[in-house]
């Protein structure tokens, strides 16, 4: 055979893209009712773009869902709605406020009150209500040590629980998709992507992201070394004065648990340069939800969190 092309190697982003598209197509082929979790954050933006590519020129054959705490950045919600309209997918919004109103969960109180953990109930209720059998999440293994041990196709029992000690072995690119009624699989197409891969892909593909990922002026206050946006949902202490700073967000959760970083990076290349040089992880730097304990993520994941 004439080997006309140099050496048939692919770049790291091409390999990751091919692997993720394979995963997404496998779900569409083997499950009846998949859904893709789309928050408007950078990871789910990449995941949605990969889903578009997986089925092009057809449309994405499943809906997307956002678990809305009601405390999200308005810029991100606006972005979410615009992106959904562009792709033509159906958007389901699962509302934490509605879970609270229905008495399914109780609002936390106190200084660190957040709806982060409450989302699990809202998410699991929505999965049951819609009878979703496969749920795409944008989590990456490099994010957190419990996630480093999770499968790409991660089994959830009828209570939505993850059992880290009893996971299905995962070999080659062959995925076991079999479940019983009421169980579901969480699927993580970005498992092998790092934070830097995500940013480099966004830059290479020219994907649009919400403006809060770039440097902008914002009223903030400092708490435990994090800069939190001044907003109506966090009770602020008298020792926590508001000041103006030029910041950007490195991750986008809701306003009560996501911190900003001081930055002048106004372009994607500046952001990538900062990410490449940083010596602190994204969750360590900007996520209050991981600070509860060493195993905060594992504990939430066991309950059925993202």
């Amino acid at each position, binding site marked *: 055979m004439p080997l006309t092309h140099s050496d048939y190697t692919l770049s790291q982003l091409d390999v990751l893209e091919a692997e993720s598209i394979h995963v997404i197509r496998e779900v569409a082929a083997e499950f009846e009712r998949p859904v893709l979790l789309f928050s408007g954050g950078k990871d789910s933006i990449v995941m949605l773009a990969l889903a578009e590519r997986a089925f092009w020129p057809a449309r994405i054959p499943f809906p997307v869902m956002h678990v809305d705490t009601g405390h999200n950045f308005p810029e991100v919600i606006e972005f979410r709605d615009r992106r959904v309209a562009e792709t033509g997918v159906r958007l389901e919004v699962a509302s934490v406020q509605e879970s609270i109103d229905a008495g399914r969960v109780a609002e936390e109180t106190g200084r660190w009150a957040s709806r982060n953990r409450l989302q699990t109930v809202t998410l699991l209720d929505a999965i049951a209500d819609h009878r979703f059998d496969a749920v795409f999440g944008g989590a990456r293994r490099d994010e957190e040590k419990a996630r480093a041990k999770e499968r790409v196709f991660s089994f959830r029992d009828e209570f939505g629980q993850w059992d880290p000690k009893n996971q299905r072995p995962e070999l080659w690119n062959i995925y076991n998709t079999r479940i019983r009624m009421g169980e579901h699989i969480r699927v993580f197409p970005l498992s*092998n992507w790092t934070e830097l891969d995500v940013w480099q892909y966004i830059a290479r593909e020219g994907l649009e992201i919400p403006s809060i990922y770039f440097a902008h002026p914002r009223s903030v206050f400092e708490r435990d070394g994090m800069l939190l946006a001044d907003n109506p949902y966090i009770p602020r202490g008298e020792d926590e004065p508001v000041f103006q700073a030029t910041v950007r967000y490195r991750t986008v959760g809701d306003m009560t648990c996501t911190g900003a970083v001081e930055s002048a990076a106004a372009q994607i290349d500046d952001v990538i340069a900062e990410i490449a040089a940083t010596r602190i992880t994204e969750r360590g730097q900007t996520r209050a939800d991981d600070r509860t304990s060493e195993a905060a993520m594992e504990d939430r994941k066991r309950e059925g969190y993202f």
Partner: protein
Amino acid sequence: MPNSTGTGSPVAGHGSARHTDILRLATAGSVDDGKSTLIGRLLYDSKAIFEDQLAAVERTSRARGEDYTNLALLTDGLRAEREQGITIDVAYRYFATPRRKFIIADTPGHIQYTRNMVTGASTADLAIILVDARNGLTEQSRRHAFLATLLRVPHLVLAVNKMDLVAYDQAVFEDICDEFSAFATKLDIGDLTFVPISALHGDNVVQRSENMTWHDGPPLLRHLEHVHIASDRNLIDVRFPVQYVIRPHQATDPELHDYRGYAGQVAGGVLKPGDEVMHLPSGMSTQISRIDTAGGPVEEAFPPMSVTLVLADDVDISRGDMVCRPHNQPMVTQDVEAMVCWMSDSATLTPRSRVIVKHTTRTVKALVRDLHYRLDVNTLHREEGIDRLGLNEIGRVTLRLTQPLFCDPYSRNRQTGGLILIDEATNGTVGAAMITEGH
């Protein structure tokens, strides 16, 4: 679709600079061999460990009364692992140098060892087997080497660690290499490299060791950066398992109305527009009209690209079918000979066990028709006349399938030669099988 500039041009590359590729490696061994220290050093020296992660590890080490920073805590992420000081499962780690991105499948040395090692090795380009220089080869290192070759990991590195504790003695290193080479003649090893290291002090990990100037090979990381993996894929035998049929059904757009594309990930060979291809099971031939990606058509497709084939003729093709070349076809068989690694802790594999087989994009039912022997992973001895395989045991079986598979010997193609076994009752993945030659 907006902004899909880069997707269609993976072949052309992105810019003139040399791009980085990915090396997947599996590390096998226990904490005692210094595996966690080695991984910790690779991650730390390549700046993949961050300050907050290191601070958390230092905090935990201190709280547990350890007098050193226990780098194993970086990789042991689960509550039970931290409490019991053991590693339960395969953990994936990531680091990068300007040349390559690395994905480490870090497998524990003790509990569920075989199951985890087989899982980690199934996708690995390279396996590192760690040996403690003071102890030399152990039963465990032989087992690691055997499993890596069973899964046909193309490159093997025997890293002789703790050289500092044997005074960096060349003779100790060479004795271990000789002993391993003698054992390796019994295995089918593609590429074998020996490196003397001290993970604790960093000798020959990232930097060349000044304590072992007698060794002319490169340090470990340099080897990982430069080992040639592009030829490890099968670029000869065209294999395209059809994963998903794309039919837009958009009545408004006449161009899309008749669009029918066969999506999948290339498992072998190089496909080009105009190529004569054959569809299995029908045996009908047609040509490739176009190879689509979201970024536009491409001139060629090869593993592991995910693409969509548009064919010249209307052939009835569905998921689970195979596209190949008319003069280079896979085996089409309902009787599969395979080496099985059994992974269930509740059920055993016996003759007449019923299982579900998933192979590429095809799922069929199967009956275990024969269990020929169990292979002792330590001695490579074949134990015949057995009636079952238990957890973490490896044996040779004949499977009878309800429908044919389109497959190759695993030695020829890891994608079309590997399959998983699923328990009908529990839906658990209970085994992995590698199709053998000699059908």
